[in-house]
C-alpha cells in the first residue's frame, strides 16, 4: 500500500471552450504524488497551476484522462461524493484566505466539523487547533474583517486541518502576507508535513518553494520539470 500514490494523474487534460476558441489549460499531464509528499507547483501565469489545483481539489473534473485521489477515480464519483471528499480528505488554504465573513474565527474553524458531523463542536477541537496556530480565545471570537492577514491565514490553516484531511492544498498561501508572516505560515505547514500530511503548494516565490521536498514546474499546461 505504501507504493500506491495518494494522488495519481493519468494523461489528464483540461480544455476550456472559449468564444475565441479552445484553450488547453492542462495538456496530457501524468503525475504521482505519494502520501506525505511536500510538493511545490511552480510556473508562470497561465501555465496551468490553478487549473491543476482545481483538479486536485475536485472543484473541477478533467476533460480527458483519469484522476485518482486516495485510490478513487474522480470521474466515477457523484457530485455529493466529490463534496464529501472535499470535506473529509482535502484541506484547502487559499491566497486570499477565503474565510466566511459572517462567522467568527472560531465558527470558521468549527464549520467543516459541523458539515461532517452535523453537530456543533463539543470536543474543543476547533479551540485546540486555533491555539496551535497562534490564535488565542479572545481573537477567535472576532470576525475575519477584524483580523490581520496573517491571523486570517492562521485561521484558514486551522479550518483546513479540522477534519484531519490527508491532503493539504495550498494555493499561494503566503501571497497576501508580508515575508515574516509568510515564513511563519510556512513553518506551520512544514510542521504539518512532519505530522504526516501531504502538502501541495502553489507558489511564485522560489524561497517558499525551497520548503518543499520537490518542485514541479508547469509551462503551457505541461510538466516542464519534475
Amino acid at each position, binding site marked *: 500500500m505504501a507504493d500506491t500514490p495518494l494522488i495519481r494523474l493519468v494523461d489528464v487534460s483540461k480544455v476550456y471552450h472559449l468564444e475565441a476558441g479552445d484553450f488547453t489549460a492542462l495538456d496530457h499531464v501524468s503525475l504521482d504524488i505519494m502520501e506525505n509528499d511536500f510538493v511545490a507547483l511552480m510556473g508562470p501565469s497561465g501555465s496551468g497551476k490553478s487549473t491543476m489545483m482545481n483538479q486536485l481539489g475536485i472543484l473541477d473534473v478533467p476533460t480527458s484522462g483519469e484522476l485518482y485521489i486516495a485510490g478513487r477515480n474522480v470521474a466515477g464519483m457523484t457530485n455529493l461524493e466529490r463534496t464529501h471528499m472535499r470535506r473529509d480528505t482535502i484541506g484547502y488554504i487559499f491566497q486570499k484566505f477565503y474565510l466566511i465573513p459572517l462567522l467568527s474565527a472560531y*465558527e470558521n474553524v468549527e464549520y467543516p466539523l459541523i458539515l461532517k458531523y452535523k453537530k*456543533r463542536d463539543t470536543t474543543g477541537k476547533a479551540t485546540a487547533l486555533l491555539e496551535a496556530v497562534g490564535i488565542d480565545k479572545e481573537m477567535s471570537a472576532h470576525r475575519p474583517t477584524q483580523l490581520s492577514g496573517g491571523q486570517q491565514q492562521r485561521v484558514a490553516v486551522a479550518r483546513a486541518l479540522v477534519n484531519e484531511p490527508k491532503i493539504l492544498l495550498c494555493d499561494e498561501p503566503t501571497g497576501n502576507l508580508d515575508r515574516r508572516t509568510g515564513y511563519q505560515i510556512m513553518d506551520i505547514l512544514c510542521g504539518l508535513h512532519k505530522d504526516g500530511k501531504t502538502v501541495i503548494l502553489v507558489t511564485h516565490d522560489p524561497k517558499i518553494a525551497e520548503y518543499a521536498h520537490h518542485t514541479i514546474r508547469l509551462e503551457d499546461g505541461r510538466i516542464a520539470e519534475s
Partner: protein
Amino acid sequence: MRDIFFDLSVRSVRLNYLRSILASIGIVIGVIAISTMGMLGTNMQLETKDQLSAGADTVVITPDAVRMGPPGSSTTSSTASSVITKTQLLKIKQAAGSNASNIIPVYSTNTEFTLSSIPGRGMIYGIDPDHITEFLTIENGTNIVGANDALVGSTIATNFNLKLGSRIKVGSSTSGSRSEVKIVGILKERGQAADSVRTDNAIVVSDDWYVKEYGGKDEYPQVNVIVKNVDNITGTEELITAKLNTNAKTPVVRISDASTQLSSITSTLSTMTTFILAIGGISLLVAATSIFNVMMMSVTERVQEIGILLSIGTETGEVRRMFLYEAFILGIIGAGLGGIGSLVIGYSVVSYMIGTTEYFFLPDSIVYIPAGVLIGIVVCIISGLYPAWRASNMDPIDALRSE
C-alpha cells in the same frame, strides 16, 4: 442545536437589515390586505346571515309582476296584478291554514317627508298595529295606539336626530295637503331583513292611516306568512303555490323565504369576498417580487461566500437551505408583523364598515389572520426558491473568482 445555516441566514438578514425590513414591509402590507379583506367579507356574510335567519320562519308573498307605479294606481303589467288582492289574501289564509301562526299583510311605498323643514325620502310601511310587535322590535317608546302615531327605523332616527314625540310631515312637498305623524317609538336595527320589510330607513304607520293617505285598501304589495314550525316552511309554500299559482306558466304570486334570499345574498357576498381577496392577493404578488429581488441581491452579493462554502465541502442542498431560511426569516418578520397589523387594522375596518365587531373574533372571521400569515410565509419561501437554487448550482471556481 442551532443550525449553522440558520445562523448564517439570520446574520445575513441582520447585516442588511434596512433592505430586509423594506422587503418585509411588502409582505406586511400583503398579509394585512388579504386578512382584512377576507375578514371584512366574512363579517359581512355573517352579519347578513344573522339578520336573515331572524326571519327564517317567514314566507314572503309578493305579486308576480313588475310594479309600475304606487299601489292603488294599478299601472301593472298585462299578465298580473301589482298587488295582492283581498281574494288572494283569503286564499293564502286558506292554504296556509294551521301551519301559519300569523298572516301579516304589509302596505308599503316610497315617500317624501319633512322634518323641521329638512326633506328626506324613505319607505313607509302600513301594518296593523296588532301585528307590528310580532315581527318588529320597538327599542324605544311604545307601539302605535293613536291614529297619527308612527314608528321610525334606527337609521332615520339617528340621521334626523328624531326623538319620541317628534313630528314628521309625510307626502310630496309639492302637494298641498301633507299629513303629519307623531313618533311614538323607535325600532331596533333590522338590516337586510329576510322578509323584505326593511325598516331602518323607514316610517311605520298603522294600516288605517296608510289607506287613508295613499288609498288602495286591501291591495297589498306584500304578505308575510309566519309559520309555526320552520320545518313546515317548504310544505306551506307548496300549499300556497297550489292554491294561487294554478297555472305554472303564468304565476300570480312569487313565494320566497329566508333560505332563497340567504343563498342568493351569501353567493353574492361570497363572490365579492373572493374579488376583494384577489385585490389583496395582488399586493402580495408585488411583495413576492420584492422578496425575490432582495433574495437575488443577497445571492449576487454573496457569490464569493457561496464559492467558499461549496469549495470546503458544503452540500448544494445545504446552500439551498441557507437561502430558503433567509426567505423564511423575511417571511416570518413580514407575515408576523402583518398578522398583528391585520388584527388592529382588520378590527378597525370591520368596525367602521359593518358597524359591529361582534362577529370579528368568530373562527370563520379570525381564521383569515393565521391564513394570511401562512400565505405570507409561503409566498416568501416560493420567492426564495429560484435564488436558492441559483446559489446552490453555482460553479465554485467561478464563484470564488468573483470579487
